[in-house]
């Protein structure tokens, strides 16, 4: 059996660069969207925490699947079905390596980080959390790591507790420690804060939570594109992320869970593919991860996500981190030097996210004026209203950087902010 015909892709003929070189020009050429103009200006895309752009290899992988590989998985004996199944499962293995999970069966494909958290809350949560128990989160959560636990606690008569953060936007570890106790059944924390950029000391937090036998759920949505994740070294019980925030397609995400926990959890949704046998009297469920993948999944999304992770691996997360940290330093200095601009979130350990406010000017107006300059940032509460309350601001403007951003773009942002001041005074 021969693999499906692949479209001819011309080989890149530029000479190989040294491993240390970060070829920003080549990287930017990998992303078709970046060469367009917005409002007659070159697009400056600084909204990567909302979603990242997609490299050509991801777009091609999805196109190739639909043009020459489309079939349903895990059921057909025919060639295309087998081929689609192979590609789908190859992506699962790619994700396993990406997170350094022990086994591919610990990788469940979901719609995104949000669905991953809801799945855990509705399965592990419902069986483990009882009246009087506690779920511990932090004050820097995205709504997606608040509301599913609120729903669960409401149903069970359990208590949602919140570990506070300091003025820099860092978790106060002592307070976190004090909030842990015999009633703490689940600890759900972000690896990186979406609104502040704070990188949490996960290793220590997991250790502390496990000291009280709590299961630890990590929202990795904002982490996986910025830093290498090793779930076995972290020893977290669950880790979720969204494909579209790591240069992959929307609508696909990953739930990692330790096999023993996933095995013991009841299914989330019933349907095809998640069963072993069905009669009207009784159904036995499939093994993990299939037990949690009811119905035809987003096959093209999974294949696209695999291509995205391969791309990130090729560029190298260590080199991406060096590039982004350099940009973050540069941007922090540049923005801090503008009178009347204040940064929200100044943690020592920080990913390339810059939330800021301007004296007397609402973020929404900043966003509109920057858009005129072709600069895309996010303005608003970033689905983290409690974070805004903590810092006493209704909203912030947020520039979030990705592997393709440049110092020139930061200079453009600074010029744009000066224009905001010019227009609004």
């Amino acid at each position: 059996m021969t693999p499906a015909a692949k479209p001819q892709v011309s080989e890149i003929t530029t000479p190989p660069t040294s491993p240390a070189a970060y070829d920003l020009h080549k990287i930017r050429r990998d992303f078709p969207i970046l060469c367009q103009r917005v409002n007659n200006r070159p697009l400056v895309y600084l909204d990567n925490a909302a979603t990242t752009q997609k490299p050509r290899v991801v777009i091609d992988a999805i196109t190739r699947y639909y043009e020459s590989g489309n079939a349903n998985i895990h059921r057909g004996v025919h060639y295309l079905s087998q081929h689609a199944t192979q590609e789908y499962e190859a992506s699962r293995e790619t994700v396993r390596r990406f997170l350094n999970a022990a086994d591919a069966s610990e990788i469940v494909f979901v719609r995104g980080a949000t669905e991953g958290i809801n799945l855990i809350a509705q399965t592990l949560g419902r069986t483990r959390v009882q009246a009087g128990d506690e779920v511990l989160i932090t004050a820097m959560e995205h709504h997606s790591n608040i509301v599913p636990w609120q729903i669960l606690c409401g149903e069970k008569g359990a208590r949602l507790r919140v570990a506070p953060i300091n003025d820099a936007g860092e978790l106060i570890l002592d307070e976190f420690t004090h909030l842990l106790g015999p009633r703490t059944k689940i600890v759900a924390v972000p690896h990186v804060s979406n609104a502040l950029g704070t990188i949490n000391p996960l290793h220590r937090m997991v250790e502390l939570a496990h000291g009280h036998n709590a299961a630890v759920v990590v929202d990795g949505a904002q982490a996986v594109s910025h830093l290498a994740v090793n779930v076995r070294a972290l020893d977290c019980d669950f880790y979720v992320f969204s494909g579209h925030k790591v240069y992959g397609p929307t609508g696909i995400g990953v739930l990692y869970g330790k096999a023993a926990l996933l095995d013991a959890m009841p299914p989330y949704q019933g349907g095809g593919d998640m069963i072993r046998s069905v009669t009207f009297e009784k159904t036995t469920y499939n093994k993990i991860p299939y037990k949690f993948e009811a119905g035809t999944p987003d096959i093209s999304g999974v294949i696209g996500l695999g291509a995205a992770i391969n791309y990130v691996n090729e560029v190298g997360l260590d080199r991406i981190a060096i590039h982004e940290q350099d940009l973050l330093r540069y941007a922090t200095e540049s923005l801090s030097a503008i009178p009347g601009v204040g940064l929200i979130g100044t943690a020592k350990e920080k990913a390339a996210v810059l939330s800021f406010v301007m004296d007397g000017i609402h973020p929404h107006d900043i966003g509109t004026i920057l858009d005129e300059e072709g600069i895309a940032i996010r303005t608003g509460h970033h689905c983290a209203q409690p974070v805004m309350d903590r810092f006493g601001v209704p909203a912030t403007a947020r520039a979030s950087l990705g592997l393709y951003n440049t110092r020139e773009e930061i200079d453009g942002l600074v010029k744009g902010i000066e224009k905001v001041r010019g227009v609004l005074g």
Partner: protein
Amino acid sequence: MPDLRELYQDVILEHSKAPRNYRELGAANRKAEGFNPLCGDRYIVYLDLDGDAVRDIAFQGSGCAISKASASLMTQSVKGKTQSQIEELFQDFHKIVTGQTSAESSAPEVGKLSVFAGVSAYPVRVKCATLAWHTLRAALAGGDQSVSTE
């Protein structure tokens, strides 16, 4: 490309920096809260209704220049008007910010509110311009109410 100065006209900037009737209204017999969950803009509109007419109106809250200026100008333009007059004014205002009527051809009652015509070139900002109005309508409709743009 739309012109930023059309959006951020001097009258709008001036009202956003020094909003009129920006206070809690002690004599209020109606109030409502308006919230745009997408951007976090939030206003409270206080009303002192004398029968069917607005004897006094005030507002408080936070939001962008467009939403705050709109709230400020709204309080000026509805004082002394009846509910049906206010509803008519809102409909005229809505036509202007959505580009269905030009500032020149708008009803004379609209007056200063026509400075918001520039909003029509920025569809995502229409909700900013109308938030206070929706809040006012909720207050007129009765009781302590909360409205959302979504």
